[in-house]
């Protein structure tokens, strides 16, 4: 119809927008953060020691869950208040498998993916009938049901939880044993999650999700059954969080129902908002920030929430777009 090269001249970037350029900066910032994390064993060897490395590991595992939650909150507009259920489920599947004599990391991960995916499919299929605040609450409901179910597993410690005396092995290698093996495994999973969520967000699938966040009506009218896309996103996010649960069980060598509590789901949401929604870096920064600040503040006072609470309020009031945006602004101002 029209000469393509002419239109190409008009829009050489295929529709590049300021958001696109920001995305490139975000990519670099994200890689920089991952690089700093990769060097943490060396950095903490100089200052902080293995204790700080442990903290960073905890933050990285939570970051995997937070980034997967960002796929729902930030990219799809689905505020799930039950995301910690997948963390809990992943850790329980791991813990129960170890207790029952399954030690191979691959079969355990297979079980984690199967069970978390199944749970996500069933609860998502029901939850996604609702939207908005109703969705928030129905995901909370499913999270609570799982929490109470885990608490009643008397043979696996009930609400006291269960100490794990074994570690999953990968073909005889203990890469999930707490220490540097687990650190690098976690780093790899984190980087993969970060990459995958970015790729998914930019893909055809992600485009439908992002459009659906703004206008479900429009997405339906051009011919997409948004429900199926959202359900798929819900399952994908659940799978990533389930793997995070697996890593968490390896890291803490202990499973406990409180992992699946609504307070924990709330913390994940706070991480995502605090960091900045719809930017994977936000969830990553949010997780690091919450874990490290909590720990640093609690060193000074038992009543650290007196400081942390107002901090959150101030960020909500003044840092629109969260920490990632703040970082981008600082970076842009240079």
């Amino acid at each position, binding site marked *: 119809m029209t000469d393509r090269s002419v239109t190409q001249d008009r829009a050489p970037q295929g529709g590049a927008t300021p958001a696109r350029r920001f995305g490139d900066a975000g990519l670099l910032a994200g890689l920089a953060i991952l690089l*700093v994390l990769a060097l943490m064993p060396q950095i903490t060897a100089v200052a902080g020691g293995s204790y700080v490395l442990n903290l960073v590991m905890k933050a990285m595992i939570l970051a995997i869950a937070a980034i997967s939650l960002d796929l729902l909150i930030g990219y799809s507009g689905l505020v799930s208040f039950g995301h910690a259920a997948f963390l809990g489920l992943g850790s329980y599947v791991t813990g129960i498998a170890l207790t029952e004599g399954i030690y191979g990391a691959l079969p355990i991960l297979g079980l984690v993916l199967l069970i978390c995916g199944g749970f996500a499919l069933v609860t998502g299929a029901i939850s996604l009938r609702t939207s908005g605040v109703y969705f928030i609450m129905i995901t909370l409901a499913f999270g609570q049901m799982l929490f109470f179910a885990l608490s009643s597993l008397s043979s696996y410690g009930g609400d006291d939880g269960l100490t794990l*005396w074994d570690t999953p092995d990968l073909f005889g290698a203990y890469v999930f044993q707490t220490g540097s093996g687990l650190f690098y495994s976690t780093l790899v999973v984190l980087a993969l999650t970060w990459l995958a969520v970015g790729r998914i967000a930019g893909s055809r699938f992600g485009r439908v999700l992002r459009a659906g966040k703004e206008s479900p009506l429009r997405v339906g009218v051009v011919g997409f059954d948004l429900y199926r896309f959202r359900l798929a996103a819900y399952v994908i996010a659940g799978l990533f969080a389930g793997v995070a649960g697996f890593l968490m069980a390896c890291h803490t060598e202990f499973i406990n129902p409180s992992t699946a509590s609504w307070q924990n789901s709330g913390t994940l949401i706070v991480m995502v908002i605090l960091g900045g929604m719809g930017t994977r870096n936000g969830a990553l920064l949010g997780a690091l920030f919450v874990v490290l600040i909590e720990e640093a503040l609690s060193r000074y006072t038992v009543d650290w929430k007196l400081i942390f609470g107002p901090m959150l309020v101030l960020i909500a009031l003044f840092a629109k777009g969260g920490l990632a945006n703040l970082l981008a602004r600082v970076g842009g101002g240079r």
Partner: protein
Amino acid sequence: MKKLACALGALLMATGMASAEDLKIGLVVTLSGPPAVLGKQIEDGFKLAIDDKDGKLGGLDTELFVVDSELKPDVALTRVKGLLERDQVDFVVGTVFSNVLGAIFKPVTRSETFLISPNAGPSTLAGRNCNPYFFSTSYQNNQNFETLGKHAKEQGIKSVFMMTPNYQAGRDAVEGFKKYYDGEITNEVYTPLGHQDFSAEIAQMSDSGAEALFTFMPGGMGVRFVKQFRESGLADKMTFLSAFTVDEATLPAQKEAALGFFGATNWAPSMDLPQSKKFVADFEAKYGYIPGGFAMQAYDAALLIDSAVRAVGGDLSDKEALRKALEAADFESLRGDFAFNNNHFPIQDFYLLRVDQRDDGKFWTVVDKKVFDDHTDSFAAECKM
């Protein structure tokens, strides 16, 4: 990016400080939310012991690191790793709650640091998962309940209504009670943790016709339940048998509502022993409230460390010798007779306690009768140590 790096650096410095002392002890207790009352007792009791020893346990300058578990296993775990790796403590003393103890148990014992529990005593750690690096100055959780079960049987109580929170300790309570009690159990009711309104359960009690009530409602739940139970008029019709429900932690809020109710444990602040009397007097003078079992067990934990460190002449590197010294339990416990069993849990007496009012108007528990003499827990046989 640079700013971030600076901030990160500052953070690392802040969280990475450590200094050298002779004897370093980490205390892991819950200091957040309502259960902070219990954590505070342990902290105060432990500190009082250090003061009594002029700041030197076992003759070494003692530095105490108190961390708050926030009653969250993952938080406790993080902070305990801090104690172990950053502060390099020689002993970890904790915790109040079993689920928190479970979370920190493996990292502490694996690092070959001695872990002493001033309260929590889950059955697995007394039994099959007993550990050379783990000691308890309290009890195995079930024992207080066994005391009540035995008492109920001895009294010839024909039927009992059981109510505990729906969590592991609640289940242990029922199991412990049933071990000695063989009468009729009309109901077994499990309430949600943190339960607010017991009216539905109280209605069931009145309907059950049971002769006695057996319950375990720690903390705020106990305060609410005792108050509502008293208001329902059932207190005149059912014998109130409980553990951790009417104790020095809850009595300041329950007051006369709990008067005459029964509890059971290994000690009471009114106990007629010179060391105990001195402890209670000093404690009240210093902190302004009556110490409960939590404070007593923490004080004993400090005495235990003191005795062991003294016995090895301050040499903390020989773990084997230190363990031998701990096992000897060569100290004068506030509760009287005290010895360690093979599983490092105490062999001790258990009493039925009754809530009473002191001359100054305050409420505390008094010994009603001794139920067990030199009682050992039921799980020691499973321990291969």
